[in-house]
């Protein structure tokens, strides 16, 4: 009787060991499965995103109408401003030539649509409908017309995961446009970002614009990150930090541009 019980327990232990081993191996190999499964799921994701977009349009019809009127006025104003800027730009070009500066080429970008978002609250990411077959590679910078969005984290054949600016693992070398004060912008998993490592006597003011500093080769210099909304002092009292409102509304972004060169 005792022998039988021991045998049963032994068999149970062996089964438990094999099951644990199976789960452990599964945990290690699952990341490799992401790419093909996402490739299959991209169509239902596209359909769901499209339906959501259309439903949004119907539900917020009135809001959209009011916004359209407001934006039309803004477009008129911006058109006027663009004319002035073109003038400044041509003047800038002339002056650069005079200074024999190497003219920077504009970025080559690929447009992509957002088809999915983070699965939980612990990361901030989006899934886009362009992948390695369209020339997307891991580490490429993602922007929108408003400013910096994030970086490509994972690439499959026809989709890619983008780590957004407000993810905890993001860190971008940045500077305050007005005072050229440099710092490090990172995510907080909230709608705002934090800029750290600012000296105690740093020249930062509320409403200052923050751009990429180009200190790390990953991010080109001059990409708009956001504006300063709050300034504080670190616990140590040795440095300051500031809270930045991103230029891009990361929670409702629908289209992005990937800088490929």
């Amino acid at each position: 009787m005792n022998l039988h019980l021991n045998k049963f327990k032994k068999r149970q232990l062996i089964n438990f060991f094999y099951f644990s081993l199976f789960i452990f191996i599964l945990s290690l190999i699952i990341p490799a499965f992401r790419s093909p499964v996402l490739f299959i799921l991209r169509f239902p994701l596209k359909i769901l995103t499209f339906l959501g977009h259309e439903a949004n349009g119907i539900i917020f019809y009135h809001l959209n109408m009011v916004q359209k009127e407001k934006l039309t006025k803004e477009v008129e104003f911006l058109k006027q401003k663009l004319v002035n800027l073109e003038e400044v730009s041509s003047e800038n070009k002339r002056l650069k030539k005079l200074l024999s500066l190497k003219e920077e080429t504009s970025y080559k970008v690929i447009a992509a649509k957002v088809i999915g978002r983070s699965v939980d609250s612990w990361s901030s990411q989006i899934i886009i409908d362009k992948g390695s077959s369209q020339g997307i590679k891991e580490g490429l910078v993602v922007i929108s017309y408003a400013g910096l969005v994030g970086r490509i984290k994972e690439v499959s054949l026809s989709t890619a995961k983008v780590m957004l600016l407000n993810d905890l693992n993001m860190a971008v070398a940045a500077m305050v446009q007005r005072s050229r004060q440099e710092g490090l912008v990172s995510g907080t998993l909230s709608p705002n970002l934090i800029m750290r490592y600012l000296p105690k006597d740093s020249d930062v003011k509320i409403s200052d614009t923050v751009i990429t500093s180009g200190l790390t080769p990953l991010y080109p210099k001059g990409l708009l990150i956001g504006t300063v909304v709050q300034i504080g002092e670190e616990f140590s009292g040795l440095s300051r930090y500031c809270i930045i409102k991103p230029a891009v509304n990361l929670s409702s972004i629908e289209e992005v541009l990937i800088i490929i060169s």
Partner: protein
Amino acid sequence: MICLEKKLKKILFLLILVIVALFQITYLESLRIFNVKPDLILVLLVLVSIYFDFKKALVLSIFLGFLKDLFGVDKIALNIPLFVLWSYLVFKLSRKIIVEKNFIKALFVFLINFLHNIIRYFIISFLIKDQIPIFIFLRILILESFYTTLVSPLLFMGFKTFFYK
């Protein structure tokens, strides 16, 4: 005929699990409160562990963990082993406590969500070395646990309707 109907229902149920996971990464984004959204996949895990037999619950917990890991960016698929563990825990607890009332089920959801996030935090912090600041961790831990618990009765109702009507 009945066998075929049962098989179809099983396939339909798996399809519903996939659809809920797709909802999690699409429409649920607009339901974020303080940048936190409910974890519907975890609610489904609690439900299958309560209502199904142990083998089925185990297989479904692996499937749900797979779905969650699929859309995540973690270097190791942490959700599969954790989901198996929670499934076992819920299965054992639900056989000792009467879980018919939604309140008890919601309590299970809260407990599992809380434990899941704490364990995940420790694994990520100490094994993968991705540091999450403690204030951000506490904010998401508390808000997500409450939010998921509040939303869970909707899924309880849907689950009951699917299996008992």
